[in-house]
């Protein structure tokens, strides 16, 4: 099958690849571009492990065809740290023991990033709602919720 070109911004860097038509964004990111932070869990849109941010919106890369992302700005969990310094959400996840196996963590952090971008001081219910499309089978969710609330408090203290 003929290859098709895709071009988008990934974590601020221009990326261009030739891929098989019909390739999912998850496959393109992990196996063509080498960003393995989005995880392929269910491939059904149920687990949220493949969550990425496309043009500011949370999307599931396992159900998104890469060709539909031409010209888009894509953010993954691997693009959050700057100069080796963890993003406040990543730091909060570590400090709150919000990861065990870590498989769901990049998707959780993507969902939380979108939440805090739009709602800097979310309520607990808003955090639960924002993470409702992401499944964790280790933590029981509470440490994750607390980590997001901690990161939000940390952000607002730094902004003050």
């Amino acid at each position, binding site marked *: 099958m003929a290859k098709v070109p895709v071009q988008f911004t990934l974590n601020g860097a221009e990326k261009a690849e030739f891929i098989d*038509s*019909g390739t999912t964004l998850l496959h393109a990111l992990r196996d063509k571009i080498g960003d393995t932070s989005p995880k392929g869990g269910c491939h059904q849109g149920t687990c949220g492990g493949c969550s990425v941010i496309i043009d500011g919106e949370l999307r*599931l890369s*396992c159900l*998104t*065809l890469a060709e539909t992302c031409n010209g888009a700005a894509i953010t993954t969990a691997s693009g959050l740290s700057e100069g080796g310094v963890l993003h406040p959400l990543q730091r909060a996840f570590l400090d709150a023991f919000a990861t065990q196996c870590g498989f769901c963590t990049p998707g959780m952090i993507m969902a939380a990033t979108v939440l805090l971008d739009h709602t800097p001081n979310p309520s607990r219910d808003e955090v639960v709602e924002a993470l409702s499309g992401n499944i964790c089978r280790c933590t029981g969710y509470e440490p994750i919720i607390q980590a997001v609330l901690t990161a939000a408090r940390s952000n607002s203290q730094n902004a003050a």
Partner: protein
Amino acid sequence: MALALQTFSTVKEANAALTVAGTRYLGGGTLVVRAANEGDVSVSILIRSTEPSLSAITVSGDKVRIGASVTMAAIACHPDLSSLAHAARAVGGPAIRNMATVGGNLFAPAPYGDFTVALLALDTTVSTKDGEVPIETFVAKRESNHAIVTAVGFTLPVDGGFRFLKVSRVKPTGVAVLSIAAVLEQAPDGTVSSARIALGCMADRPMRATAAEKALLGRKLTSDGIEPALAVARDGTSPITDPIASAWYRNEVLPVHLGRLLLA
């Protein structure tokens, strides 16, 4: 089998491409890409259209037109559609709502398709190149539809006239045990003058609870008033059995939840 994607700037071109064997229309991807990921090899070419009208919401007075590519998230945050926001938010989690489209929801098999339950209660019309058809007709024959859905249209109910309930085991977002939508009009004395009730998960696709609708006419929305409607709520149902609930369970709890919706 590998998939290929073909993108067209107009619906007309996309409709022409869909006449080829092995093609299917791609909306938000939450149904057809999922099916491909699960190994559905019946589709080899996905077709989509980027025609702007597919992504437009138009509200003129109480008349609403929603393009088929409009997402659940767009409906949930539209200022003129606030009465429907909770039905749009009933679909999936935040990422799914950013992807799932109104057009796609019309084809979602039970236990999915919660927003179509709402559209069924709203007496929606579904537009394709062949014209407009009532949603009930469209959903009943959706497997044989080969024309791209371009929009849905309906009249906004009066304030408080639309009610929606999704029952799920996982909060705040989970797969439905069942969902119910109702558009009710009441006479000045409080009796029901018009009722449209739609059910999700009570068949393989959204269905009307016509017996319950008739039993509500002329009755007040009190425990005694709705009793006849609850007694016939299961008429014509053929619920799905899945890991969420059995058909028996869904039928048992339907009157309970319908009662809660009507008395809310």
